[in-house]
């Protein structure tokens, strides 16, 4: 063996086992970043507690019809015989009405509370899915293709981020309603349904831009890496490079952004409903109940506190869980 021409096969021949070291079950071996993050998350006590609270609300939302059947009440029966002439309920917590009844209408609080978890969660999750999908595609295209595509998408991102979200959300509601013939001509059910979709649209419309900007930045550095160059060199089509080569490397920012978006959307949905531009009767929603309950909070505090506790617990658990997920993917951010 002369100097200058190292024989790379020597070591392997001498020690064939070293090429593929024998693994015992106990020795740690290659884990994907998502796997590592998930393992960290499982050991995080706060994350586990928050995840179970979120799971509780998800189960409540899924089994809302079952739960209200168990109680023997529904969301739209008016128990006017239990309301006095001033609109105050004459009964508190009873075996029939687990959380009492609403002032003025006499509808069952428990049934409306469990059903109220539904729009919050459905709107937040759908808006997150739509917003994340748009954000990822836009970010991938802008970062990978560059040139005028990048310039247009970057400008769109700047544009969306500089719009006042709350005001636009408020402005969109009457416009969409007047498209469908104005709120005076709509039945309450139609109006409630329209509001439902308007909310998802508004949240997704304002939600994609932040993620798109992050993805674009990541792709800008990833596209110069060898594996992408290699894929391009052997003639892999662009869409396959985007979704098969780049996307798996973007799992961390996508999961983090989605997990922080969900609590923000729950907050936004309930907030808009509280202002009267979100969900409307007859759809039960926590935000709208809070708005009504502020007129009755002295005589009937339970009516106010039920949705308040619901939203606070759900948003708090989701937000802390999102924070824990971010820490799990990027331990440097840990306090």
């Amino acid at each position, binding site marked *: 063996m002369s100097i200058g021409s190292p024989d790379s096969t020597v070591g392997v021949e001498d020690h064939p086992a070293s090429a593929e070291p024998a693994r015992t079950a106990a020795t740690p071996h290659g884990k994907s970043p998502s796997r590592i993050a998930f393992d960290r998350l499982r050991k995080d006590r706060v994350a586990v507690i928050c995840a179970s609270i979120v799971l509780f609300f998800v189960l409540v939302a899924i089994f809302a019809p079952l739960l209200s059947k168990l109680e023997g009440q529904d969301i739209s029966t008016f128990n006017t015989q239990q309301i006095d002439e001033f609109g105050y309920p004459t009964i508190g917590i009873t075996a029939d009405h687990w959380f009492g009844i609403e002032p003025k209408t006499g509808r069952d609080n428990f049934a409306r509370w469990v059903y109220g978890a539904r729009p919050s969660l459905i709107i937040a999750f759908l808006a997150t899915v739509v917003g994340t999908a748009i954000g990822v595609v836009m970010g991938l295209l802008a970062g990978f293709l560059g040139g005028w595509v990048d310039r247009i998408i970057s400008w769109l991102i700047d544009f969306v981020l500089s719009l006042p979200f709350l005001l636009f959300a408020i402005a969109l509601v009457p416009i969409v309603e007047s498209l469908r013939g104005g709120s005076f001509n709509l039945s309450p059910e139609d109006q409630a349904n329209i509001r439902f979709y308007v909310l998802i649209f508004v949240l997704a419309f304002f939600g994609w831009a932040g993620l798109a900007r992050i993805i674009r930045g990541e792709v800008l550095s990833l596209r110069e890496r060898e594996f992408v160059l290699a894929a391009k060199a052997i003639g892999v089509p662009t869409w396959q490079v985007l979704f098969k080569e780049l996307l798996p490397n973007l799992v961390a920012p996508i999961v983090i952004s989605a997990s922080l978006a969900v609590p923000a959307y729950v907050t936004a949905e309930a907030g808009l409903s509280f202002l009267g531009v979100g969900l409307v009767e007859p759809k039960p929603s926590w935000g709208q109940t809070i708005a009504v309950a502020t007129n009755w909070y002295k005589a009937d505090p339970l009516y106010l506190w039920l949705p*308040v506790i619901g939203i606070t617990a759900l948003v*708090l658990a989701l937000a802390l869980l999102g924070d824990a997920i971010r820490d799990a993917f990027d331990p440097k951010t840990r306090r």
Partner: protein
Amino acid sequence: MLYFVARRLVSALSVVLATLIATFALFFIAPTDPAAAICGERNCTQQRYEEITKNLNLDRPKVEQFADYTIGIFAGRDFTTSGVTQHCAAPCLGFSFKNDRPVTELIGSRFPVTLSLVLGYAVLVLTIGVFVGSMAAKRRGSLGDRALMTSTLVVSSVPYYIVALMVALYLTIVYPILPRGEWTPPSENFGKFIAGLLTPWLVLGIYNCTSYARYSRGSMVETLSEDYIRTARAKGLSDRVVTYKHALRSGLIPVVTIFGLDIAGSLGGAIFTERIFDLPGLGQLVLDSLNNYDLPVIMGTVLVASVIIVAMNFLVDIGYSLIDPRVRLS
């Protein structure tokens, strides 16, 4: 530098123009009949309907209507209602047929409320947030620091309107520890003006200072580990001088950036505060207009808020490029 400013200005103006077109499109092209929407469907007479159609030139092409609106912003225009012609002066953002007043006038009458709210909030949030953040940074890792950071995380995770609502209901009405929110012009009675805004200021300031505390803590922790801080300490400067004179100066730069954008955003985001504390500001104006379908007012407010945000964005970018020259190259 000049090139950078010019480029940023062009992009800021393009965003403003796009916002103008987008809002116009939303309000005047999307609804099938803007005149009917503006007129309202409960007590709209045929005469009034025609009057609005004529005033807004709704029978002419959309491009001309848009040109009218845009020219109105710079030159003003006239509106005729019930036979009386009213002039809508230069920054004319349309005419509220519900209130029989130009939109600009309505916004102008509500603006001082929102501005006072935001200014008081700005002072509070900066002083509390930066103070708490730099205290935590100095005692990094201590029990107090960790307790503080955990509590700010928890507080900022609870929706703002829940906190504000609970304070408004329980601390100003049920247990009147704090004064109730109300609006008195400062020229009329300054003491009442302060008292009426005190609770909203405190709630806004304390709730939002959590994020400022976290930002300023983060940037102070970084700054305090710089070499020049060690040099300052080695020279024998007192702890107070090192922290507040040397470290705070450069530690504040990222905080100021966020501050600019936050203030612009909170002009539009004051809606919850105004609704809960019953202050007649811009947010209330929008909500009132929503209830009676007063589309020109909503459109005008959206435009004003967008322009303020874009302007603040622009100023922050320019300010940042002055502090950190590397920004200009990107």
